[in-house]
């Protein structure tokens, strides 16, 4: 399992070669809290999206691929809270040096866990400038998870933030958001 931290929105650390990744296939690692296991699903697939608000509460969760192990809603809440705490801890003990912002730009928020990978899934975390975290669970071979999670952020900005009936930091129950997300992430 490898955990990667980096500056939010800044330059990534240089990719070292990862021979361990292939060796680990022999002993599959399952992150205990998620319990996500793939039966036989195509390589390029998004499994789930979770959105965590500033306080660490889960405000949205949805699974996209069929054949995933079902978790009940309590488990998702626990997962979100746990991740929020771990993210905060990793922010304080991160060994990555703080990046100097370009002149005229605000200093980017400090680093925390950006991605976590095992042989079965990859977790990508995108933190917005307002403190909302987007957790994306994909298969390890999925390329461009950055682009995918940013597109999810865009859809969120469009249909949740511009909705007059959505109160901030509350659970997201917005029909157009679900529809747009389904259109983007569900492979027919």
């Amino acid at each position, binding site marked *: 399992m490898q955990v990667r931290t980096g500056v939010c929105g800044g330059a990534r650390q240089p990719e070292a070669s990862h021979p361990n990744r292939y060796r680990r296939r022999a002993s599959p690692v399952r992150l205990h809290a998620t319990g996500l296991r793939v039966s036989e699903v195509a390589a390029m697939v998004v499994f789930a999206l979770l959105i965590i608000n500033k306080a660490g509460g889960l405000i949205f969760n949805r699974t996209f691929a069929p054949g995933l192990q079902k978790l009940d809603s309590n488990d998702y809440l626990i997962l979100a809270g746990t991740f929020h705490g771990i993210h905060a801890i990793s922010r304080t003990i991160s060994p990555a040096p703080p990046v100097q912002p370009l002149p005229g730009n605000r200093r980017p928020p400090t680093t925390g866990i950006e991605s976590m990978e095992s042989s079965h899934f990859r977790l990508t975390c995108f933190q917005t400038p307002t403190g909302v975290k987007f957790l994306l669970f994909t298969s390890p071979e999925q390329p461009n998870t950055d682009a995918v999670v940013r597109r999810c952020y865009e859809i969120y900005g469009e249909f949740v933030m*511009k909705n007059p*009936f959505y109160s901030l930091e509350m659970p997201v129950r917005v029909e157009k958001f679900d529809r747009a997300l389904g259109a983007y992430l569900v492979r027919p």
Partner: protein
Amino acid sequence: MPGVNAAAPVLDFDGPSTVPITPAKPFQSRLRYPSNRKTIYDRHLNRTLTASTSLPAFAYLFNTIITYHHAKSGSVNEIETRLNRAGYPLGIKLLDLLLYRQLRVATRPTRILDLLQFIHTTLWRALFNRPADALEQSTTKKNEYMIVDNEPVVNTYISIPKEMSQLNCAAFVAGIMEGLCDAAGFGMEGVSAHWASASEGQEGKGEEMWPGKTIFLLRFGEVAMQREEGIKAAGG
């Protein structure tokens, strides 16, 4: 100015009567003007024809309007009425503006059908850059007409929560239409916006594709209908 000595740079507070009051600065507007000092009011009316505003900018403004009225209203009907009243003055002004901007010399529509065509094409093009989708006359009532829009632009980012599923924020556009019709001399009983619900048998397939399909119901007043009958009878 009490207590201020122009020669002394230091302010001295001997007592409340000697506290200096700084003079009021002259008002300086922070609005940005182009270098030729022309504002939007100096522009020719036809020049803004091709310019369009950004949809998100409108969406945020509309958002605030809805939130404001939602906070002040008790029921869905009241919110719709308030949105209707909000759009009404726009319709009155738009009638003259759109007639002025038409390329051919245009006259105010005097027949119901002309008015409806004007709304269906000219008004919709000016507001949303496309004509409306359908224009129908009601079979049950003579004074009711319907304009159908498959996906009102004002509703692009709005999802109604389940407890208010009746509310259609296109009531704002209905208000614009009502203002326009009233200014054109056709006293309206009202214009309202409704979701194309599944109760209509043949519409069922329609709103699978267009979940936001909206029907604007225009109800003409008694006076307008009688005038229309009179013109028709006189062979107009």
